[in-house]
């Protein structure tokens, strides 16, 4: 479980996050949604301690990530897997080596065991046989899959995905969403996804947090989001005409 408590962050007097709190539970896919520029990615960076908030705390199963010894922090980091927006694959390394990288750096595993683990993870994301290719030789969707394989290679307790659907066609987006959902349920990870994709919200959102101008305006799930009466959330959700129609039918 991940708890964020009263997170506030500003850049050059511009308040980007204002007192944001929430709880992301184990085995659930939790989504942080909101329009562009509402502070979703900054919230993720605060949770990962890539950006240190001015106020607040992030607790990983009760362990405060911002205070304590460097070794404790390193241990928490080893329990994390992160899928970055563009995949963040290392350009100079093959797909196989990209996935193996965390094992090389953070474990003492024998080479054969590492190879098996990497093959398993690539197979899990449907990329068996692509290990020798370079990141420049694979598509955007495949890069995301490799990113997911790298994120799960260490058997993480906490999985973070920053806009996993961005730049992908609808079919690939659905597949990526399904894959993340499956991995969350299979490995009982605490999964946090930053997105503004309504298809993801409706299909995999066990818990949804809506951010608006740096503040948490609403929280709920994919069932309750269509019944919202909060104008800002309505504007965000029902910018899609199909959803407006769906709500009208539901109300009928």
């Amino acid at each position: 479980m991940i708890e964020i408590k009263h997170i506030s962050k500003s850049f050059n007097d511009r308040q980007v996050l204002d007192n944001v709190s929430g709880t992301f539970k184990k085995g659930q896919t939790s989504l942080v949604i909101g329009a562009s520029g509402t502070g979703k990615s900054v919230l993720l960076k605060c949770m990962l301690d890539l950006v240190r908030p001015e106020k607040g705390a992030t607790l990983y199963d009760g362990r405060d990530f911002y205070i304590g010894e460097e070794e404790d922090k390193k241990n928490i980091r080893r329990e994390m897997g992160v899928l970055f927006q563009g995949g963040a694959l290392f350009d100079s390394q093959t797909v196989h080596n990209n996935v193996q990288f965390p094992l090389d750096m953070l474990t003492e595993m024998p080479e054969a065991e590492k190879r098996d683990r990497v093959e398993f993870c690539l197979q899990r994301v449907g990329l068996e046989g692509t290990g020798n290719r370079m990141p420049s030789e694979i598509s955007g969707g495949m890069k995301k899959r490799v990113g997911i394989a790298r994120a799960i290679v260490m058997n993480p307790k906490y999985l973070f995905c920053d806009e996993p659907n961005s730049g992908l066609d609808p079919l690939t987006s659905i597949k990526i969403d399904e894959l993340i959902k499956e991995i969350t349920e299979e490995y009982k990870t605490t999964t946090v996804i930053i997105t503004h994709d309504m298809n993801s919200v409706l299909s995999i959102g066990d818990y949804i947090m809506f951010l608006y101008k740096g503040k948490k305006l609403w929280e709920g799930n994919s069932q309750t989001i269509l019944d919202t009466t909060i104008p800002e959330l309505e504007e965000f959700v029902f910018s899609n005409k199909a959803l407006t129609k769906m709500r009208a039918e539901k109300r009928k």
Partner: protein
Amino acid sequence: MFSIVGRYLIFLGKLFTRRETFKVYWNRFLDECLNIGISSIFIVAIVAVFIGAVTCVQTRANLVSPLIPVYIVSNIVRDMTLLELSSTFMCVVLAGKVGSNIAGELGTMKITEQIDALEVMGINSASYLVLPKLLASIFTFPLLAILSGFLGIMGGYLAGTLTGIITPEDYIYGIRYSFIPFNVFIAIIKAFVFGFLISTISAFKGYYTSGGALEVGQASTAAVTNSCIAVLIADYLLAELLT
């Protein structure tokens, strides 16, 4: 200005904290020696040979007095090559090749979140990425300076003897005449210092890139110009200190 220097010093400090295992650095050090040192041999060789040749031809053309013995030409080629051309001039060329490469690579890694990916894994990205580049630079630059000095003198020999402006005997006599071995040491010291400056300044510029492709290009340009300025200032200070 002071804040930039302060950030640069903090960045240098970051390279030596939370380090990874020796094996990790050793493998990356060997890779960087190839990237920085071995891949620069060709450009260094071309530049050194031609600079030596031009120095020989120009010196001979300007020494018109019959009172000056002809072996002075190779004497001047030797001292110019060892004291300035093989270290300073060669490092200015390397600032363009190696500096822009380092800044471009790190800048691209920064904007594509590869550096964030390393940090999230608990790896000190500055130390992991930059320290091997720094060590490879301070190791290979002096070797390149030695190669450059040798090839510069050879370039002068070829240009002088093939065009007939100096005999091989005079050239050899000139490069042996009043030779000060300490000058070779000066060239090595200079290359060591310039290697440190070029690699760290370029890495600093690349590591703190933010934005997109345009900013990566700007970081590369800034890395080359700042490295060249630093090399020239350090060259003056070392000249004052060592001669």
